[in-house]
């Protein structure tokens, strides 16, 4: 992944989101050691303190846990917590944006719901 460096999103948030994706993808299982701040700094060419901030966010949310002197590890509930978090925060925000844009364009709620359904039909489920 390349970081979006135009300043639209803090780097440490991009780091924590990238780590979340790595966990969701199954690249890191529970109780597996995750990248250190120095590895992340090298991968993304950023200051190690910024990388540490990204790791600490996930530790505060109990997605990672610290082992003194050994580094950060993935908790057993990590995957589930990331999914719930994304549903409650990321998805909610996106929906708000959509509703706002629909209002600007005077698209009714009913029409919008139809559009969402139509978009869903293109997916792989049905």
């Amino acid at each position, binding site marked *: 992944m390349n*970081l979006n*460096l*135009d*300043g*639209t*999103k*803090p*780097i*440490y948030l991009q780091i924590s989101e990238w780590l979340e994706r790595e966990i969701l993808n199954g690249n890191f299982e529970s109780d597996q050691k995750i990248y250190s701040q*120095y590895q992340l*700094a*090298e991968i*993304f*060419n*950023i*200051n*190690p*303190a*910024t990388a540490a*901030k990204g790791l600490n966010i996930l530790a505060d949310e109990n997605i990672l846990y610290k082992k003194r002197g050994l580094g950060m590890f993935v908790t057993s509930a990590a995957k589930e917590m990331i999914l719930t978090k994304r549903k409650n925060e990321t998805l909610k925000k996106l929906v*708000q944006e959509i509703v*706002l844009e629909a209002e*600007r364009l005077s698209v009714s709620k009913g029409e919008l719901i139809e559009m969402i359904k139509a978009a869903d039909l293109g997916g792989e489920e049905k």
Partner: protein
Amino acid sequence: MSVITCNGLTKKYGRNKALNNLSFSIEENKITGLIGRNGSGKTTLLKIIAGHLKETSGEIKVFSEKPYNNLMVSANIIFIHDQMNLPAALNLKEILVVAANFYENWNSELANRLFDYFSFNPSHYYQDLSKGMKSTFNSILGLSARCPLTLFDEPTTGMDAGVRHDFYRAMLKDYISYPRSIIISSHHLNEVEDLLEDILLIKEGKEHLHLPSEDFKEWSIGMQGKTAIINEWTVDKEIIHTRSIGLDQSYVVVRNQFSEQEVQRARIAGIELSPVSASDLCVYLTSKTEGGIDDVFNHG
């Protein structure tokens, strides 16, 4: 622990104050960006830290000692700038050999690898190098010396984009394997900001802002929308930059003191909110007027 503390630091050249009552402190083992416009006092400050210049008044301590004419301080500092005085009688390779005697932590392997990577010719002389090659050679000295305090004053002057990129990465990698205090002044903040832990912004010889680089991005917020609505929202805010767009739209940068709910309400009111990059913010903050260059043309 702080490597540098200064209190009320002032430096006068004749009547002109290059540094005016400057106070700040820099923590150990951080990469700090020293940012400011031309003539804001960056180089003067670095020269005082390195002990090349004496302050007019105020206090400065580097490794808890006064830096001017101080052997302990100069043994632990390397100051890289574009007027390095390197021996004209020695060729490039010989300079590297001699430099090893001056710096306790000198890493010859790193120096030689960088020397080869940037395709220097060992038998060439420093004074015959191009501007960009001089800068590149200087930065090899700066990195390989591994001094507890490394000062880079505009290290990338004249370097092409590729070399600048390589230099930044080399600095980061060597910093990771050998943490030390680094101060780098640069006009290319957008290129270095991700490598910095802190940013020290000076304006007209005074400290203007000293923050973790990540906090810079959240320190202000850009608002764009109908001028009337924008004015309503920014009436009691600290305005940093303002620009009109089209017939009735404005872009205004203000201190970001909005709550989550306010941001939401602003969005609904039709204001587009966007983060302001650290380099843009520094330009706005160090500009003498809110409108910047546009004010020159908007007269009458």
